[in-house]
């Protein structure tokens, strides 16, 4: 029987891992739900953001937060540029899978060409810093990532719910013809949303650089679990993505602590299957 401390620590670890899942899922959920683009390149963008943070930090000694301040607007523009390409070639929901898969492979090769396949680690003085809460330890960087995910999820939810742009985006996703009849310029707003999604990938990338060791193939490590998070959370549902991330993170972590770590990867997909059985039609 695991001790209470072990269970508590596993819970903390799961919540924090879930925050990262939620952060990565946020942009993907928005572009899939509101633009009908299944953007696999989101993962490659996140890793590109991580490598750029690493490069700016190690080569130019730029603080990661300053690096993020440069990367996030850059990624916003990159996202807009990508959307221009998608719009020009009239990429549909299905073809977006193929196109963005290709983009991901190209980006992976570029990462490998520039930084080699070897591991890169961005060492910072606070990499292993933790806060102590009774017998439990809360790693600072993971906590910051989780808080950032929560803040972005809440802000995005409020943006979609209370602003004209957010309402217009939701309306266009639901019924493009009717939204256009009411004067919604979906094209312009799609650029904005695509930029925001890519910017979120940049934010996630900064935290990945600080928390993980980088290798180009790491792009694929997140794909399965984050897709599960997006579907469980509901498309274009930022709060849902965050909560689903937490659910998966905690489930995996508790499985590791109580049963065996080898079963942890089964958890996300088991939860996904159960939810799809109980509530079909989430995609």
């Amino acid at each position, binding site marked *: 029987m*695991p*001790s209470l*401390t*072990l269970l508590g*620590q*596993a819970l*903390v*670890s*799961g919540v*924090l*891992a879930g925050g990262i899942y939620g952060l990565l899922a946020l942009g993907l959920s928005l572009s899939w739900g509101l633009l009908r683009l299944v953007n696999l390149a989101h993962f490659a963008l996140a890793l590109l953001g991580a490598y750029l943070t690493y490069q700016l930090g190690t080569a130019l000694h730029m603080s990661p937060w300053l690096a993020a301040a440069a990367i996030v607007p850059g990624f916003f523009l990159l996202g807009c540029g990508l959307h221009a390409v998608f719009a020009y070639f009239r990429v549909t929901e299905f073809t977006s899978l193929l196109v963005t898969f290709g983009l991901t492979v190209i980006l*992976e*090769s570029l990462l*490998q060409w520039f*930084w*080699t*396949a*070897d*591991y*890169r*680690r961005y*060492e910072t003085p606070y*990499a*292993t*810093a*933790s806060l*102590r809460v009774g017998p439990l*330890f809360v*790693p600072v960087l*993971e906590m910051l990532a989780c808080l950032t995910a929560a803040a972005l999820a809440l802000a995005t939810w409020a943006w979609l719910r209370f602003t004209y742009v957010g309402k217009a985006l939701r309306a266009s996703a639901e019924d493009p013809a009717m939204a256009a009849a009411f004067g919604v310029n979906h094209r312009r707003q799609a650029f904005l949303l695509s930029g925001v999604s890519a910017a979120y990938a940049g934010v996630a990338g900064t935290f990945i650089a600080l928390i*993980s*060791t980088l*290798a*180009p*193939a790491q792009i694929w*490590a*997140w794909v399965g*679990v984050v897709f599960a998070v997006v579907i469980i959370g509901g498309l274009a549902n930022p709060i849902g993505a965050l909560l689903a991330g937490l659910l998966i*993170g905690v489930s*995996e*972590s*508790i499985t*590791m*602590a109580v049963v*065996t*770590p*080898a079963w*942890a*990867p089964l958890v996300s997909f088991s939860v996904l299957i159960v939810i799809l059985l109980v509530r079909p039609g989430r995609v």
Partner: protein
Amino acid sequence: MISRVRLNCRGLLAGLFVLALTIPAGAAPSGPPIRIGGTLALTGPLAPTALLHKIAGDVYIDELNKANGLLGRPVEWVLLDDQSKPDLTRSLYEKLLTVDKVDLLMGPYATSGILAAMSVAQRYQKVYIHHSFGMPHLAKYEMHFPTAAFGPEPNVTLPTTVFNSLAATANPPKTVAILTSKFPSAQFQSAGAKEVAEKRGLKVVLYLEYEFGTRDWGALAARVKDAKPDFLWVGALGLDGNQLLEAMKKLDYTPPRHFHLFPAPGPMVVAPDGNLALSSTVFEEHPPFMNNPGAAKLVPLFRERATKANVPYPHVDTQVAGSFAAWQVLEAAVTATKSIDDKALGQWLRANRVPTIIGTLRFDGPNNYGEDLFKVKQVQDGKWVVVWPKEFAAPGARLLPP
């Protein structure tokens, strides 16, 4: 006039003599190249280590071609990317033999890929030299020749070496926690470590297997901390050990002693928590290993090439040395038999010992394995140094206590 001509002739001869000293001993290779086919995981999760094998192979072939090639012919390495996928590896070896029609084979990296391609080599009866196979009991093909010198039972011999090294210290461990990746060779050798530990009377307080590619190390770290072992064995591949140590550090915990089976050598050396980490090796860049003439020549070349390729840890250790040894074995067999006939090469290799950068290899034991040549190394002052057995230890080095 005559004397000036004589002087000029003497000068010409002297010039030719100096020129002869500066060019390599053998003539430049000529004729159609000998094509050696193989794959490496140039992309995918195994790519960081496979990159080192690629550089080692490039260095070796360049040196071969700068000399006399093989049998006087230039050597061409037909290298394909298996993307770290065993199924693809198998298909690519089939392609190498049937489409590219290579003359000889060199194995891929790592255990799963090597096993996948072994069946192809067997079907076409090709000599199959490989450098990173960790499950000797599965290698049944009579013409496979391993240079990962694990011996026939690394699940027994390697843990025995490790526990022997610990037993020789002032405070040997009494309890052990074993965490292992489910990657086949790591799981196989770690399961063996559990049996060896129990047979030696050590208490195994935790045994866990995790998936290759695990992302969240927090819960695993918490379980190790909860188990409070004297010694932690991590059946680690690549960065697993680093990530686990870092996750444990975040819980304000570092195990008294920790061993990592197949770690990425560079990150462990530079990691703040990597000091005193233990691992296994067949080669490190210090005496007595560097006394080997092959090492003295190849190590600087590898360092130079790896540095140019922007590899963060441009040093020769187990992986690179295993790769060099594989090429040395191939060269030795071709040179000795004066042939690229697979049967002739295979027969020669089974009957002869081959001196390599990692020591003398033989292939006449069970499943073509010779001795287990692995030693125990430790991170000390930012460097890997061999600490056990004593005769292979770096000058003045010993296994440091926690």
